């Protein structure tokens, strides 16, 4: 079946798109790269961010995952100038992406390198020097079975993923070995993104309940630690169930526990 002619990208924002759909972008008036327009905003307007689930093709953007099409307007200063399009899809299996912060479980120590299980197709490697304040003599105290929060340095389909626990300026900024106790469990990737959204109601409502600590990894893993085992398990159950609960049901469930 030949693919039909594409539809305009703006028209599909917020609707379900399927793999194989072609999205047309509005034609750019100043496509001529030779002429450099000396004017404010001439160059940045051309750049468009094509996010996960989309790929560039001759006519415009080709959809590769099914989900809802999202769009973010241009502007915003520090973030990428020019608009951004991406597909909000749902999946449980994680594919390592460079720059993502994930929770990994140490499975092996091979000389100078730790092997971490991050839920992808391969195990990620983490050098012992990639911690803050680590030198050849001063090695970090990492054992098999520890939880590590780090980010991907290298993550593509041709190479083994590599992780580090420091950022570009050499500071750990919260990454490294996650402490003892606590509970680790797995959820779908869409829920993680929903929880990490700037104003997430679920997190706000939970924070009113008990004092607790939470680490969210982009690979679908969540680590929770509260004062007692019972409180930890309550938070875990709420986080697992809130994916399929409406706001009303969630508020009812939390109201039951806020008395405890």
């Amino acid at each position, binding site marked *: 079946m030949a693919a039909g002619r594409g539809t305009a990208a703006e028209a599909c924002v917020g609707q379900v798109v399927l793999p194989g759909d072609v999205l047309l972008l509005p034609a750019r008036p100043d496509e001529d790269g030779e002429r450099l327009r000396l004017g404010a905003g001439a160059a940045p307007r051309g750049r468009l961010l094509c996010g996960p689930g989309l790929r560039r093709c001759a006519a415009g953007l080709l959809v590769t995952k099914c989900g809802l099409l999202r769009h973010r307007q241009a502007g915003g200063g520090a973030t990428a100038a020019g608009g951004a399009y991406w597909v909000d899809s749902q999946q449980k299996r994680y594919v390592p992406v460079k720059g993502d912060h994930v929770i990994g479980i140490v499975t092996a120590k091979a000389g100078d390198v730790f092997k971490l299980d991050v839920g992808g197709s391969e195990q990620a490697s983490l050098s012992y020097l990639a911690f803050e304040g680590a030198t050849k003599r001063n090695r970090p105290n990492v054992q098999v079975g520890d939880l590590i929060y780090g980010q991907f340095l290298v993550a593509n389909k041709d190479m083994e993923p590599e992780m580090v626990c420091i950022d570009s300026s050499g500071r750990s900024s919260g990454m490294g070995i996650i402490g003892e106790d606590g509970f680790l469990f797995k959820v779908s990737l869409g829920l993680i993104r929903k929880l990490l959204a700037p104003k997430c109601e679920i997190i706000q409502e939970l924070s009113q309940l008990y004092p607790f*600590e*939470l680490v969210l990894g982009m690979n679908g893993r969540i680590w929770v630690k509260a004062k007692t085992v019972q409180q930890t398990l309550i938070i875990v159950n709420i986080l697992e169930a809130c994916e399929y609960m409406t706001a009303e049901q969630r508020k009812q469930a939390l109201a039951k526990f806020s008395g405890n």
Partner: protein
Amino acid sequence: SFIIEERSFMSCEDLLYGRMSFKGFNPEIEKLMIQMNSRCKEEEIEVDDKMEADVSDEEMARRYETLVGTIGKKFLRKRDQRVLQDEDEDGNSNRRPSKKAKKKFLKPQD
């Protein structure tokens, strides 16, 4: 036109930092949360936390005043050291002539 392909969600959506702590469970992480999330919204604002000083500023100034003199004396030559000593005993006029007398060569009296 220029289209950039990205596989990460971090640059598309404005996601918060993954480590969070609530109600004071882990104070370091709470400080980190404020720092990280304000960095996303605006340019990095450096918050200068004034650490509580063990020694007050006045005491520090007083100590430094005398300290400079003490260390400076170490590097004076012997002659300059004597001059300093003279200056210290300004009020005492008795000693001065005796020192001056010492410096001059005493002719033997016939």
